[in-house]
């Protein structure tokens, strides 16, 4: 038998029972439609997210460092009490929420146990890592496709203004960052040569007493004084907090501890530590073990006067920046100055050894891999959006598989329906199959005829589904984009439905295969009919 005749006969038989055929077609169309939409929307979403991230500087940035162990942050944190979260002053609700979140952060960082653990971990990593020097940065900048290198300077400091004093962190700002620029609440952004300018976050301003929206504007143009807190001071504070944190102080053990410290200081020159390490130990231990240190500022502490140019909004969950907050160590708190000023301040410290890390900005997303490879050759460890994207894609894929299983379930139910319909049809056409066999049809001819009916149903159903899916995509794209913008604050411009030829082919083959499998039992039954018995039925 010719394939054309088989298809023709199958089509004619389906047409003869058009009402039943139509019902089955709807089932197949729904199943393969859901399948097609799932595949298209996931690939559309994926490419849209790529496009979105590619548009930000984060996609083009690589964080480099030389530490041995990866950075880890304690994920489990206790919940702060309501009393610690009271926000004072008149302000718009969105700002109130941001301040409240910041208060929660502060409470959390004041939780001794956690700070200790984190700080110890950080110190451990820092002590093991080889720092990045200003020269290293120049070397990185010379790599092809590298546009800018921002030093990872996060200098602990005391901020003083009109008698108020707060501790904070001073960051080297990425001046080309569009995301940072977006966060400017009032005032102006820094320019490259503005070595005395500083951007302050709204929470620090709040803490310094500039609370209402009107007060915030008054802060612009004011001069603040910065005093860098050395790492030795940080370590000393750490030791003190460690003593306070332990509830039962064993005096004997404490005396032993002091004696050991004194011994260590006396014998320091006999150790194999290098000069800077010795200096660090001496500075850390001397205050505690040799003389009672004053808690105020050092006479030789590094100080600097800076002028407030603008106030930065804190990051909120709605901001894209939150997605990257943990990939890149800088959060949204603190002060921001031009890189040269930050480097100046940090390098004047007695114990300055270099930066822990730096952010490298590449000219195009396409060159990320190439630059990463080069950096790794040069002995740097790299972290970039690539991992982040993989995570997002995994999330999308999980959603995809859920929908694919639903579609498969629909197709399966339809397949059972098709199987039953073809079974009924075979029983109804017993005489016809009997005649065909009597005239000389082989078993496989009859099998082909019935299977072909299933295949035609699958094919037509998919075709119908494709038409409906294209229509839905055309109508639904704007709706979905609007939904993403209003519900998830995700601004995507691209087409969310991508119908790839591979997806089309996969869905078609899938539904044809399922429909044909469903026809297998009726086909086999038709083929095994005894022509004499079949023809006797009139």
């Amino acid at each position, binding site marked *: *038998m*010719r394939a054309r005749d088989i298809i023709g*006969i199958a089509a004619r038989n389906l047409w003869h029972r058009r009402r039943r055929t139509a019902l089955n077609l709807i089932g197949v169309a729904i199943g393969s439609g859901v399948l097609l939409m799932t595949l298209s929307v996931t690939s559309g979403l994926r490419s849209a997210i790529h496009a979105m991230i590619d548009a930000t500087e984060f996609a083009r940035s690589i964080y480099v460092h030389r530490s041995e162990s990866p950075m880890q942050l304690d994920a489990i944190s206790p919940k702060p009490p309501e009393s610690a979260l009271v926000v004072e002053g008149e302000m718009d609700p969105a700002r109130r929420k941001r301040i409240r979140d910041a208060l929660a952060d502060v409470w959390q960082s004041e939780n001794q146990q956690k700070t200790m653990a984190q700080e110890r971990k950080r110190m451990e990593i820092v002590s093991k890592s080889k720092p990045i020097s200003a020269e290293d940065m120049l070397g990185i900048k010379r790599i092809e496709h590298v546009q800018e290198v921002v030093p990872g300077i996060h200098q602990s400091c005391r901020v003083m203004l009109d008698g108020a004093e707060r501790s904070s962190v001073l960051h080297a700002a990425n001046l080309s960052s569009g995301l940072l620029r977006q966060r400017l609440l009032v005032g102006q952004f820094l320019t490259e040569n503005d070595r005395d300018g500083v951007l302050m976050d709204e929470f620090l301003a709040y803490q310094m007493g500039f609370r209402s929206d009107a007060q915030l504007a008054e802060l612009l143009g004011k001069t603040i004084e910065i005093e860098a807190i050395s790492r030795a001071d940080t370590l000393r504070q750490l030791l003190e907090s460690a003593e306070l944190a332990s509830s039962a102080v064993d005096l004997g053990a404490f005396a032993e501890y002091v004696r050991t410290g004194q011994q260590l200081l006396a014998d320091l020159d006999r150790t194999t530590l290098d000069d800077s390490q010795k200096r660090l130990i001496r500075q850390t231990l001397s205050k505690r073990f040799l003389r009672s240190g004053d808690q105020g500022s050092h006479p030789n502490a590094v100080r600097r006067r800076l002028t407030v140019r603008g106030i930065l909004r804190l990051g909120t969950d709605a901001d894209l920046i939150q997605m990257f907050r943990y990939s890149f160590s800088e959060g949204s708190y603190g002060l921001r100055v031009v890189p040269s000023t930050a480097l100046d301040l940090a390098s004047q410290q007695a114990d300055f050894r270099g930066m822990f890390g730096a952010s490298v900005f590449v000219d195009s997303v396409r060159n990320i891999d190439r630059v990463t490879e080069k950096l790794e050759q040069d002995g740097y460890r790299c972290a970039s959006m690539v991992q982040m994207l993989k995570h997002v894609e995994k999330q999308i894929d999980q959603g995809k598989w859920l929908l694919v299983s639903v579609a498969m379930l629909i197709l399966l139910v339809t397949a059972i329906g098709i199987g039953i319909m073809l079974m009924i049809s075979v029983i109804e056409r017993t005489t*016809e199959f009997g005649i065909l066999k009597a*005239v*000389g049809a*082989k078993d496989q001819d009859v099998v082909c005829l019935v299977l072909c009916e299933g295949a035609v149903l699958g094919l037509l159903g998919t075709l119908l589904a494709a038409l409906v899916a294209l229509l839905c995509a055309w109508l639904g794209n704007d709706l979905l984009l609007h939904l993403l913008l209003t519900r998830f604050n995700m601004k995507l411009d691209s087409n969310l439905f991508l119908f790839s030829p591979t997806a089309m082919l996969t869905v078609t083959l899938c539904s044809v295969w399922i429909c044909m499998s469903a026809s297998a039992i009726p086909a086999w039954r038709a083929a095994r009919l005894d022509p*004499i018995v079949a*023809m006797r039925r009139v």
Partner: protein
Amino acid sequence: MISTSELYRSYGEAPHEIAAIRAVSFELEHRQQAVIIGKSGSGKSTLLNLLAALDRPTRGALTVDSNRLDQLSRNEMARYRLRTVGMVFQSFQLIPQRTALQNVELPLILEGQTAAERRRQASAMLDQVGLQDRANHLPYQLSGGEQQRVAIARALINKPRVFLADEPTGNLDTSTAREVLSLLEELFDRHKTTVVFVTHDQQIASRIGNRRFLMSDGCLQEVGADFGGDHARA
């Protein structure tokens, strides 16, 4: 050439076994025309189904044109039905949803002929049975005689060497039966086939065929021109 020896066909298991055909042995040369007459239930259709390879014998050998029908596989049986035999039945056995022409071209579809070639041959065949102007009618739009002519056209379209007819005039009135019979006689001559013709009607039996057999209780015996006289009537 058809030859059988000690052919048995029985239905059911041992104690309730019904033997529809017992120890049938006969030979038929190519282009001989055999008429089998017998009472209802005597086993005529059973024998014909065996000759058509629609059924397998329980025992015994059955050879048609060097095909050992009792030893063929399912596919070989189908192939034999398509290529070697043409058969007509008492109840015509046309596919109701197909036109006369489409019913006639059925064996050609199974052969894998092109649509144009099928149309040409089927039209010519319908011409031979005098139904050229009924080609596009569905079976229910045709009279009994016309339906049987369509069935005859279908049986002969593949130029079979053996033609089997199981009471082809059984459902027709006398005058129509006579017309169909003359058509058959004419076609047998033209197509030069071996014929096995089953009927229970003596008048019809006496009109055609050059060898006559009597079937009774599953046994077949060759008889003279008058079918053994009283024996048949009894």
